[in-house]
C-alpha cells in the first residue's frame, strides 16, 4: 500500500469532493449573485454619499463640516463587524429591526462613504489654489467652480486610492454571514456543515476570486489610465 496515494485521496476527498460540489453548486451560485448585488449597492450608494459629503464639506460651514468630520472619524475607526452587530442586535430593542441584508448594506455603505469623503476631500484640497482663483476671477461662483474646475481634477487624483479602498470595503460583504445574509460565505459554511465536507468552502473561495480578481484588474487599469501628468 502506498501511503502517499491515500493522503492525496484524502485531500481530494475533503476539498474537492465532486458529488458534494455538484449538490451545493446552486446554493453557492445564489450566494454569489447576492454578493454581487450587495457589493454593487454598497459601491454605488457609498461613493455617492461620500462625494456628496465632500462637496458639502468644501463649503466650510462650521456645523456641517464638524458633523461630517465626526461621522467620518467614527465610521473609519469602528470595525464594521461591530457596527453590523450593533445595528442587528441592538436596534430591535428600540423598535427598529432591519434585515441582515439591509444592516450589512447600510454599514458598508456608511464606511465607504466615510473613507471616500476623506479621499475626495484630500483631492479637493490638493487641487492648486490657482485653479480656484482663475475660475473665480472669470466670475464663476463657488459652486460652479467646484463642479466644473475643481471636482474633475480632484476625482482624477483620487481614483487610485479610491479604487483600493472600495475593493477592500466591498470584500467585507462576507461579514453579512454573521447576521444571516445568504451571500457566498454564508452559503458555503451552511453547505459545509450539512455535508461535513470542506469542498463548499473551496467553491466559496473560488466564487470570491471570480468576483474580485476582475475588479482588482479593472482597478489597476483605471490607475494607469488616470495616472496623468499634472500641468
Amino acid at each position, binding site marked *: 500500500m502506498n501511503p502517499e496515494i491515500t493522503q492525496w485521496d484524502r485531500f481530494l476527498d475533503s476539498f474537492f469532493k465532486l458529488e458534494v460540489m455538484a449538490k451545493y453548486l446552486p446554493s453557492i451560485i445564489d450566494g454569489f449573485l447576492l454578493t454581487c448585488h450587495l457589493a454593487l449597492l454598497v459601491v454605488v450608494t457609498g461613493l455617492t454619499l461620500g462625494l456628496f459629503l465632500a462637496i458639502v464639506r468644501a463649503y466650510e460651514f462650521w456645523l456641517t463640516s464638524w458633523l461630517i468630520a465626526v461621522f467620518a472619524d467614527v465610521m473609519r475607526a469602528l470595525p464594521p463587524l461591530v457596527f453590523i452587530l450593533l445595528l442587528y442586535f441592538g436596534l430591535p430593542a428600540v423598535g427598529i429591526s432591519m434585515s441582515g441584508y439591509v444592516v450589512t448594506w447600510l454599514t458598508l455603505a456608511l464606511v465607504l462613504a466615510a473613507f471616500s469623503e476623506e479621499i475626495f476631500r484630500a483631492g479637493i484640497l490638493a487641487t*492648486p489654489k*490657482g*485653479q480656484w*482663483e*482663475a*475660475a*473665480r*476671477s*472669470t*466670475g*464663476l*461662483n463657488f459652486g*460652479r467652480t467646484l463642479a*466644473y*474646475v475643481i471636482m*474633475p*481634477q480632484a476625482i*482624477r487624483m483620487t481614483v487610485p486610492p479610491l479604487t483600493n479602498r472600495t475593493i477592500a470595503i466591498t470584500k467585507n460583504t462576507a461579514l453579512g454571514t454573521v447576521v444571516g445574509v445568504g451571500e457566498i460565505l454564508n452559503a458555503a459554511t451552511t453547505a459545509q456543515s450539512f455535508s461535513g465536507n470542506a469542498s463548499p468552502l473551496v467553491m466559496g473561495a473560488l466564487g470570491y476570486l471570480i468576483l474580485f480578481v476582475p475588479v482588482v484588474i479593472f482597478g489597476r487599469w483605471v490607475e494607469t489610465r488616470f495616472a496623468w*501628468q*499634472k*500641468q
Partner: protein
Amino acid sequence: MAGKPLLDVRALYKSFGKLEVLKGVDLAVAEKELVFVIGPSGSGKSTLLRCCNRLEEPSDGAIYVDGEEITAKLADLNAIRRGIGMVFQSFNLYPHMTAEGNVMLALRKVLKQPKAEARERALAALERVGLSDKADSYPNQLSGGQQQRVAIARALALEPKMVLFDEPTSALDPELVGSVLEVMRSLREAGMTMLVVSHEMRFARDAADRVVFMDGGNIVEQGPPEAIFGNPQHPRTRDFVSQIAR
C-alpha cells in the same frame, strides 16, 4: 492723465493678521491707460492687484471700477469679476480642458451663452492671441508662452473693462517672453486698460503710460517710464531701478 479714472483705488489698507501689507495706497488708472507696477518682493504688488477684483478682501479703503464701488458690502462679486480680467504668473489653465474649453467655460456658465455662440467667441479670442490653431490642444501640449496666451484669451473673451496682469512673463523661458509681450502690446493698441505687475523694463519703457514704484506697502514714486527709469527721484526707487537694470 487723460479721462476719468476707470480704476480708482482710495486709501487701500490690507493686513494679513499682524502683517500690514498695504498701507493706504491711492492709485487711479484712466481708461485705455497701461500702468506698470514695479517694486521689491513683498512690497504688496500682488496684493494690490488681487484687491482690485477682490480675490483678496481689503481691510480698509475703497476701490471704484467705472464709478461703481466694488468694495461695497452688497457688491455683486461675480458680476464685478466678470468685468475685470486677470492673468496670473502661473497661467492657471484648467488642465482637463482644451484651450477652447478653457476660454469657453465662463462664456457658457457665467454669461450663459449657447454653445455655438460661445465657441465662436472663444475662437475669436484665441485668434487675437494668435492661437486659433491650438484650440483643441490641452494645456500640457502647449508651451508656457502659448499657455499664457490662452489665459489671456480666457480673460479677453469676457470683454472686460480692464485686465490685471500679475507677472505674466516671469514663469516663462526667456525666448517665450516676447510672444506674450507682443499680445499685450496689441491689447494696448486696441485700447485695453491694463494694470501690470512686471519687471520687463524694456517693455515698460516703450509701452507703459506710467510706472508706479511700490515699496513697503506704499507707492513711493510714480511717473512716465522715462522719468522712473531714467531719472528716479526717490533713493529707494534709484536703488531698485539700478538692481533690475542689471
